[in-house]
């Protein structure tokens, strides 16, 4: 699964609880705003379409999606499920607030997913950082894109 070997040690390592197992590594896409599935995401492109959302027009396809949690319609899982079929799903997901929408959505999207972290991913991951999610071990490794 690992697409790139990073020689240096990660800048940040933290742990969470497994929602869905598996390992993925890629570039982070971070939002502090909750995400709506039905009516908020175009599954064919993996793009956020909600008016006034900070990610409006941005696609999470192939990214490590870092977000607070799910909101909106009960169609959340169905829309994220469709992103898997359309090839536009995120590579992995990290979210803080557990809901039935986010849990079921992660399960059917079948990408490594963690929650219940020992530190807030929204505080230590920025869009563009390299992130490795190990859903089985419950670890997140972060290589900062720029030193802070």
């Amino acid at each position, binding site marked *: 699964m690992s697409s790139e070997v990073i020689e240096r040690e990660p800048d940040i390592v933290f742990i969470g*609880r*497994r*929602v*869905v197992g598996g390992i993925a590594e890629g570039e982070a896409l971070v939002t502090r705003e909750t995400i709506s599935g039905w*009516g908020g995401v175009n599954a064919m492109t993996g793009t956020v379409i*909600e*008016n006034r959302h900070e990610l409006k027009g941005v696609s999470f396809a192939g990214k490590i999606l870092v977000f607070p949690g799910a*909101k*909106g*319609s*009960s*169609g*959340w*899982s*169905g829309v994220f*499920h469709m992103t898997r*079929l359309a090839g536009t799903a995120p590579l992995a997901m990290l979210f803080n607030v*557990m*809901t*039935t*929408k986010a*849990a*079921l*959505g*992660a*399960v*059917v999207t*079948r990408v490594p*997913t963690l929650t*219940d972290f020992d530190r807030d991913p929204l505080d230590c991951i920025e869009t563009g950082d390299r992130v490795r999610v190990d859903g089985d071990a419950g670890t997140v490794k972060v290589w900062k894109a720029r030193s802070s």
Partner: protein
Amino acid sequence: MVRLTDAEQAMCDGAQGPAVAKAMDLLIRYAEALGAESFVETNNVAGVPGSSTPWLKQYYADQGGDYRAVFSHFDLDSDETVDVPRMNAFSCHLQGGMDPELWREQGMTEAAHDNFVADEKDVAAHGIQVLKTCTPYIAGNVPVMGEHCAWMESSAVVFCNSVIGGRTNCEGRESTSAAMLAKRIPDWGFHRDEFRRGQHSAQVQVQVDDVFEWGMLGYWTGGTVDDTIPVLEGQIGAPSLIRHKHFGAAAASSGGVEMYHMVGITPEAPSAEAAFGGARRGERFVYDAAARKRTWESLNSVGSSRDVDFIMLGCPHYSIEQIAEAAHLIEGRKVHANTQLWVFTSRAVKATADACGHTRVLQEAGAYLMTDTCSAISQAVPKGTRVAGFDSAKQTHYLPAIMGIEGWYGTLSECIDAACTSRWEGRLS
């Protein structure tokens, strides 16, 4: 790890066939994702089992591209195609994609209608009740207090939890389809007493009396408490099914409220102490005249032109009482040539409206009484619609955003007047 009873283990081992085993497999993955430790039994499931777009059928073409393929791979998230038996739980189909008769007026194609007819035949053949509504609780599925349900549809979920005292999380398509077969759902969230307690206090300091006011209070509540559980107290007038229906739908769409308490009104809130499960906690919010005005302005911020070409009623689906009132208000009048009036309800309620003559009154006025769906779900509005008016805060929240049109929120009476004059004269009194 989720604990399984002997009966649940037997289902996993295939005692009830491969589809039930696949359903259990999905439900176990879902329960573990949630962190649930066991399942509750449910015999009341409402979802959208197996209904699909032609795209989804095409995607599974190599698996047969039929209902069986879609139900196996999408609904049950299975990697194998399995035979799908009759559902085991009492199962209902929620709203669908078009009116069974007025689909041409809704702009649907012949091919889309053929797909709709084929899906519905399969739904019925699998023992799923074709309620085709977002309001199952007024179309033949009324839970009782304490009953464990597995429902989709946010407005129905909030009604079930808050008004009835039934117990359901906001489920998704895959979990409801699996629950229809396995009669199980994770014991998590609203199935558990401790999760149902109020988290914030909302003081209502302005009189809230009719459907219009309850809708605005709901819209404010969701925007204020997000997806937490509010406890409302104060100047809330006499409750009714319709008022709760519009309050809950609004709160669920502006914020994601899945349960609310109203002290002295809803069944799990005989007192504030009961609603909070102890002392008041969380924040204290106030709904006063200023908050009411801000809510009205926010709902009406996407409207600038008062030349209305579409009035949409029936979100959530109208009850017979609401259809009777709409018919009474429009009797002897005509929908304006520049405007269309669509009223949405369930098939069960429409049968009563037909018997009462309300359908005929609406038709004679030039309006349509439609079933199964709504403008937001099916993205169906009259051709050329630019400005719409609603008596539903939920539809005002969704439809203008989905369709890129302007929208107004007002009373039923303002909506009927606008339909007959083509002018929106809604005002905050």
